[in-house]
Each structure stands twice: as C-alpha cells, then as structure tokens.
C-alpha cells in the first residue's frame, strides 16, 4: 500500500511518559535524526525534580518537546501538534496544552482502572468522549513491542522497556526521519548486551513498520530541510555549549581551567562534562560545599589558572561572600548561575530569570561584578568566551547567567571557526611596576592600567613581585591595608569605574527593525530571545511594526543602550521574573519600561507575547 505524503512547513511534537519510560532519550534521538535531516529545530525537555516519582502519577511525568521546520525557527513552540502519551498520567498532564485538531498517539496498555485512578481519571478518556476535539490514535504500544521482540527472550519488564524505541520508530516513519543514526546509537549504547541491543533495534524497526502497514495512519508527512547558512552543524544543549565555551576559553587564553563546583540542578552537567576533558588540562574539583567550590576556584585564579565555579541560585547565595572577596582582590573568576525557579529550593528543574538582581547586588558593600547572559542554547558557547574575556582583561569576577531552559534545551549550532576565536591575553605581571624612593623597583599590586583600570596579575612563583592581598580595604596603588576614609571612597568608586569601562570593549546593542518605522521596542535578555523574536516576526507578518533588541551584557550595559531606549515611544520588556531588568533600566535611564512578566517555570509562549505586543503596538498607534 502506498500511503499519501503531505508537506508541512513545521511540526511540534511532545513525547510524554513516566520518568522511567525513557522519554528524554526518545526525544534526543528524534532530535538527532531531525538535525541530521537538515531541519531547523529547537527543543525543550521538561522533567520532574524527583528522580523516580511513583510510577503512573502526575508528578512522575517527564516530557520532551521538539519544534522542527523547513525554515529558521526560534523557539521550542507553544502548543504541540502531536502528543505521544505513554500512560494516562502523561495524557492528563499534557492534554490541556493541545489545540483542537492536534494528533494524540496513546499507548493504551496502561489504561487500566488502577492506572486511570492514579492519574486522577474517573473514566477512561479514550472512551468517555473527552478527547473528541483531537485526532486520537489509541495503540497498544507496549504489547506490540513485547510481541515484536519475543524472540530475544527478555524478561517481561526488560521487553516493555523497549516500548520507547517502538514509539520512536513510529514517529520516525510518520515524519520521514532517517534511521541510521538511531541504529548506530543503539549499537554503541548496548554494545555489551547484544540481546538488549538487538531487541531495541527490533522494536525501533517494528514501530517504523507498524506505521507503514497500519491503516490507522493513512498519511505520513514531509518537512523539507531548512535553508541554513552553509557550514557544518551539530545539535547542542546550553550546558554542553557552555562547557565547550569554557574549554575553548582555556585554550584561547593559555590558562589551565580549574572548575570548583558542588552538584546542583540544573548546573551539574557542566561539572560532568568538564570532568571528561582533562586532556585539555582541565581540573574539576567536586568540593565539600558551594563555598569551597568557589573558594578553590579563587585560589586557583590567585595561582594563575582560569578559575570557574558553576551553580544555580541557592549556590550563589552561599558563594556571595567569596564573590565579594574576588571583587576586592580583583582576580579573574567566572561564576556560572544556571538559574532555576526560586526562592529557596523553589523549582529545581524549571526555568526562571529571577537571579538578576542577586547577581547584580547580592553582596555586602559596593561590590560590582560584570554580568553576561546567553540568549540561546548554542549561544552559551560565545557567552562563556565573553565572560572569560572580561574576567581576565579586567581582573574581575563575572557572572554568567544561564537558565534551566537554556541548559537543557537544544538547537542546531553552526560550528565556529576555531582559528577565528578571540585570543585572550592574561598579561601576567613579571616586572616591578613602581620606582620607590629608594631607587629600587617595587611591585604595587593596585597600580592600575590607565585604560581598563585593571590591576596587574602577578602570580606566585614570580620573583620580586611577592605581595599580599586580602579582604581588608587596600590603599590605592601599593595595596597595603588602609582605613583612610578618602582612600576607601576612591577605591569603591574605582572598582565601579572599572566595571563601567567594560562597556568600552562591548558591542553596541543591535536593534532589529526591518521597516525602520517601529515605535515600540521589544527588549529582552537571556533565554527569552527566541520567544520575543518569534512574536515580533508574527506581528510583522500581520503588518505591525515592532523593533527587537536583546541584551547580552547586563552589567555594564552597552554604551548606546540609553540612546536606543529613548528612540521608542514604548519599550516592552518580557522577563521570567517580576521586573528585575525593568527596575535597573528605570533606575539607570529614567525610561518608563513596560514589563511583561510570568514565573511559571516555563519559557514564554510566542502566542502570549504576540498578544501582549499587539496590544501595546495598537495603543501606541492610536
């Protein structure tokens, strides 16, 4: 039977199941195949904080959303076109996100009275008509999997576990995905357990063949490759890109990377990743606590290494005192905050942008640090390099504000030309820098570079430059302890001025306004870039004018930002917090920024931003 093939320009699929069902793996594999096929894509994993919540319950549901298209896209998408639900709880937890007409593929195997009850269903939604608005495909995926692989004589439990591969095979058929990558992947992953490998392979093929033969799916779909700039691509998540950015910065600066970290969600993957790259001279230190993690990184910086610590918001709270020390020692240090829902333990696996003011002000005294934020998963690479550049050039701690969405979300990344990466010169001090009254050369650790205001970095082992630094206020220049009031005032202002000077070496903020007529500017920072950009495109498609600008540098701001803000009648600023950047902009530029805020632990939907922007654009043009 030859089936009908329909062309689509984009699809949003969500795989949902129990934490133990392997939905993240399924999503990852589908993503790899989609990337290899050449579609543009963006992904959003969503998993519970509990490692294994009770099976079949709502808190145990884990999902993976993938948006792919034949054109350039910016977000993992709002409402899924297709939901794959592996049990009643997965259906219940996700069905409300669907638009009428969406496709729902359900594994019916677990739709027993007991499991329906666990998910909170009184009657089966497959029978009571409540799914009437959707195109539902009830399939006993579990039994079909067990049947398809019975020759391998696995235990019933092991056989059932291959059902995610059956589902993957079916979806790969439905959307014309290549299969070689997954077959290779299974071959490597289960190389040591051949019957599990073969069973998974058989389940995957059985899923594909089921699609091909069943009458339940009459149509399959094609989504042509997207026109992307020529180059070599890979798919990459934010935590991985950030890790690679740090390794690249270490190579580009010639400084060995020293990571001091304590495990914390959603930042631990950076520790895991970097621990694999010792051949690049990377040292990873799993510390006894967050404070020791940053302490060791600062100690390594004092010794001339590239000191980095990685954490999430609660960890920043613990590291604050050491960040303050690094501010006054004026040593390079990179602090990565993969933001998650707060306050306190909050929502460990969900995303939020509510640590901006903590990064900005969360220390005693006047203790400014530079702040850099990536805007997409792949952009974490460049942002990490930029954070290191600032830290080394200006001898300062730098906060790199990622978030849970960037950390785990992924997108295609055009591999950079390694030879074109910036070279970062640590410029260690090797000579005395001051002639004393005695005619002898002395080393003054706080005698600054007149241009950057950075102090010299003299590392232990350098003869003749022995010096002491510490948390007590230091005299300008020679750096000895000073309690002089005027000196303190000078040093406080100088530390601030040094951070402000970073703006001299930062790109001006770029405004995208295709028609050059916009009177409203949509501004953002961090991971909201995709949603804001997609919403702006939709407005423009409808003939409405809106400009977009996105900040990479949160402290200091790019030097043209005040002028840019003043050009627009209205500035709208979506943030996944209650208006933290808005507060800073109002205070700095006296601009009446309009916030659009939500803290639901998930990225903005494009639809909600489209609606919000439309209201403002219409108001302004009235």
């Amino acid at each position: 039977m030859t089936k009908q093939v329909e062309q689509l320009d984009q699809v949003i699929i969500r795989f949902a199941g129990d934490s133990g069902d392997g939905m993240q793996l399924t999503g990852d594999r589908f993503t790899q195949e989609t990337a290899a096929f050449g579609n543009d894509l963006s992904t959003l994993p969503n998993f519970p904080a509990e490692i294994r919540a009770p099976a079949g319950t709502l808190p145990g549901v884990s999902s993976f959303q993938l948006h792919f298209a034949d054109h350039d896209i910016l977000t993992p998408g709002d409402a899924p076109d297709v939901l794959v639900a592996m049990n009643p709880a997965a259906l219940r937890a996700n069905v409300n996100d669907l638009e009428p007409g969406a496709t729902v593929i359900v594994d019916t195997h677990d739709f027993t009275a007991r499991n329906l009850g666990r998910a909170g269903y009184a009657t089966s939604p497959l029978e009571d008509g409540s799914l009437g608005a959707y195109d539902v495909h009830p399939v006993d995926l579990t039994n079909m999997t067990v049947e398809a692989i019975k020759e391998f004589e696995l235990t019933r439990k092991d056989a059932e576990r291959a059902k995610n591969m059956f589902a993957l095979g079916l979806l790969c058929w439905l959307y014309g995905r290549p299969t070689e990558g997954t077959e290779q992947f299974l071959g490597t992953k289960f190389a040591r357990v051949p019957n599990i490998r073969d069973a998974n392979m058989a389940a995957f093929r059985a899923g594909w063949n089921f699609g091909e033969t069943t009458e339940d799916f009459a149509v399959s779909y094609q989504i042509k490759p997207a026109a992307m700039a020529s180059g070599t691509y890979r798919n990459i998540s934010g935590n991985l890109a950030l890790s690679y950015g740090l390794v690249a910065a270490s190579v580009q600066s010639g400084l060995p990377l020293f990571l001091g970290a304590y495990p914390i969600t959603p930042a631990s993957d950076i520790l895991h990743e970097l621990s694999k790259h010792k051949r690049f001279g990377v040292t990873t230190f799993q510390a006894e606590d967050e404070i020791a993690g940053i302490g060791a990184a600062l100690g390594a910086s004092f010794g001339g290494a590239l000191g980095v610590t990685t954490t999430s918001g609660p960890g920043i709270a613990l590291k604050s005192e050491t960040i303050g020390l690094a501010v006054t020692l004026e040593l390079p240090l990179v602090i990565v905050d993969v933001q998650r829902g707060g306050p306190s333990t909050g929502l460990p696996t969900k995303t939020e942008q509510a640590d901006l003011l903590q990064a900005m002000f969360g220390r005693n005294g006047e203790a400014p640090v530079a702040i850099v934020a990536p805007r997409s998963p792949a952009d974490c690479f460049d942002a990490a390099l930029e954070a290191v550049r600032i830290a080394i050039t200006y001898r300062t701690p730098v906060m790199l504000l990622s978030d849970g969405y960037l950390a785990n979300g992924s997108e295609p990344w055009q591999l950079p030309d390694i030879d074109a990466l910036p070279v970062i010169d640590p410029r260690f001090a090797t000579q005395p820098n001051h002639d004393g009254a005695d005619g002898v050369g002395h080393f003054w650790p706080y005698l600054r570079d007149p241009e950057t205001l950075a102090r010299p970095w003299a590392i232990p082992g350098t003869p003749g430059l022995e010096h002491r630094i510490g948390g007590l206020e230091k005299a300008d220049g020679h750096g000895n302890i000073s309690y002089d009031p005027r000196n303190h005032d000078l040093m406080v202002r100088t530390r601030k001025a040094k951070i402000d000077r970073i703006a001299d070496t930062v790109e001006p903020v770029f405004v995208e306004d295709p028609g050059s007529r916009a009177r409203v500017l949509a501004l953002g920072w961090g991971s909201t870039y995709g949603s804001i950009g997609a919403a702006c495109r939709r407005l423009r498609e409808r003939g409405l004018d809106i400009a977009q600008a996105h900040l990479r540098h949160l402290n200091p701001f790019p030097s043209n930002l005040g002028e840019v803000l003043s050009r627009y009648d209205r500035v709208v600023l979506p943030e996944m917090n209650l208006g933290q950047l808005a507060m800073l902009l109002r205070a700095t530029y006296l601009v009446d920024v309009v916030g659009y805020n939500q803290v639901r632990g998930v990225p903005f939907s494009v639809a909600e931003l489209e609606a919000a922007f439309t209201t403002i654009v219409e108001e302004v043009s009235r």
Partner: protein
Amino acid sequence: MTIEPMSGLQLVPRADEPTTRKDFSSDQEVRWCPGCGDYIVLAAVQSFLPSLGLRRENVVFISGIGCSSRFPYYLDTYGMHSIHGRAPAIATGLATSRPDLSVFVVTGDGDALSIGGNHLIHAMRRNVNLTILLFNNRIYGLTKGQYSPTSELGKITKSTPMGSLDKPFNPVSLALGAEASFVARTLDSDRAHLIEVLQAAADHRGTSFVEIYQNCPIFNDGAFDMLRDKDESEARLIRLRHGEPVQVGDREWVHDIHDPDPSRAFEISRIDDGSMTKVPVGIFRSVQRPTYDDLVRAQVETARTDDPEPDLASLIAGSDTWTI
C-alpha cells in the same frame, strides 16, 4: 596507583642562595596587642622559613579571619588574607593547580573549628599538600572576647555571662578523626619545639595539621600558664618522641608516628581530658598516603599522555554533525 614517599617540598624550586630571616619579613608594622603569642610564632616562622631552602616567591601563606589571620601581611612572600573559615578551601585550589608552591594556611580556633570546620575536615580527608597552622588561644580575640569552640566548659565571657554550655573540641582528636596524615601540637612558649614541629610539618607531603597553643593576654590571659611554668610544665607536658615509650593510662607502648592505624594516636590525644592535667605535645602522627593534589595532577597527566595534542575543533564538533 602507588606514590613514592616524597617531601612536601619536593616539587618546590630551591633558592640559589641561602635566604635569611630578613628576606621573609615584610615592611608592614605588626599590629597585634603587646604580649600576644602571635609575635613569638611569627618570629619563629620567619626564622625557620630560610631553613627550608626554598625560593621565597614559591612560598604562599593563606589565612582566614581572626587575629592570627593577619599573619600573611608580615611575611614577604605571596599571601592572601581571605575570609572567615575559607582559607583551607582557597588553599586547596591553589595547591592543586600549583605543585611548585609551598602553601601554608594560618587559622585560629574560631576560624578553623567553628565557621570553617567543614573545609578543615575535608582538606585533611583529601590530604591536600598544605601545612595548616591552627593558633589556638581558646577565645575569640578579634571580636573582643566571646568563647570559642575550644573554650573550656563553663567559660564566662561577654556572650556567656553565666558560663558557656557547649563542650569544646580537642583539635588533635578532631584532626585524627578526619584522618589527617600529619598531626602535631606545640606551644608558642617553646620556640625550639615549635620550630622542630614546623619543620617536620612543612616537609610532610599531604595535609600537616599543627595546633599551636597561643596565649591571648587581652581576652584569655594565662590559658596555658600551667604549661609554661617551668616546674609545673614538667609534670603536665608529655613530650611525644617517635620510637620512645608513651604512657597511656596504665598501659605503655612505643610511640610510632608512622603507624597506619590512627587509633593509638587518638588514644594519646585523649590523655588530655580537657583539664590540662596531662597534655601530650609533639608529633602524634605522620604517615604517607597519596595526596589529593598529586592524584588530580596524575589524572590530568594520564589524559594528556593518552592524547598529547587534543583538538578543540573535534571536541566541539562531537560525533553527529551535518554539512550544508
């Protein structure tokens, strides 16, 4: 992996010419209270450092917060006066990334045993190549006289007008419990003993923990007088010597600082029941075990030997790429 026994200073460059006490003294005015025991320890350290034969620029002192933590300012080496309790963590990062440095940590009873207790025990557990000097004056000096985690029970201070209620630590027992590979105790008043212990501590590869009884004449004067008085000290001090007999209760054995089992060293540490009737001083334990920093560097070395010229481009490309 096996680690050959080696000195804590083995990888630190030696000075071409002998250094002197003056080379190690900074131009900063020392600002402890008159009569403070810290002066004696500073003088002892300044005069013993040249005997190590190291290049001055390869010696680093890291301290926390407290009176004794001003120490680095007075030594003309590299130094960092850090924050309260965190010196062992900072020193761990430095020592791990720089095998060519001799790293000292200067701390006090509040700094090391109260706010920084966690870092102290973990540094000792890991056996990072550090020499930790814990100045124990059994009081908070810099904050003007509150009881500390080594103050005797019932101590009347500004914060405990009716007497302190919490049992003090025995720092040597604590260090042995954390499996420190070198544990010693000495006194500010006995310069020769102090220098002897410091030398052995600096030479030891791994975390050397040295408790130094230090008098604070301002807030806890005379805390160790019974150990300083010539006649009385003879009755109270048990001077531990490797290979010599030591009496513990009604048992006696030959003191073996290299005993891999810390139990006997621990028993010796318990001779002082807190009353200071009998106080063992000297080296309790000195055993060789792999240091954390050596092991970390060995892993990096192994990885580099396996792949001497790692390629950044192939790292970031990974295995799943496509070309347009």
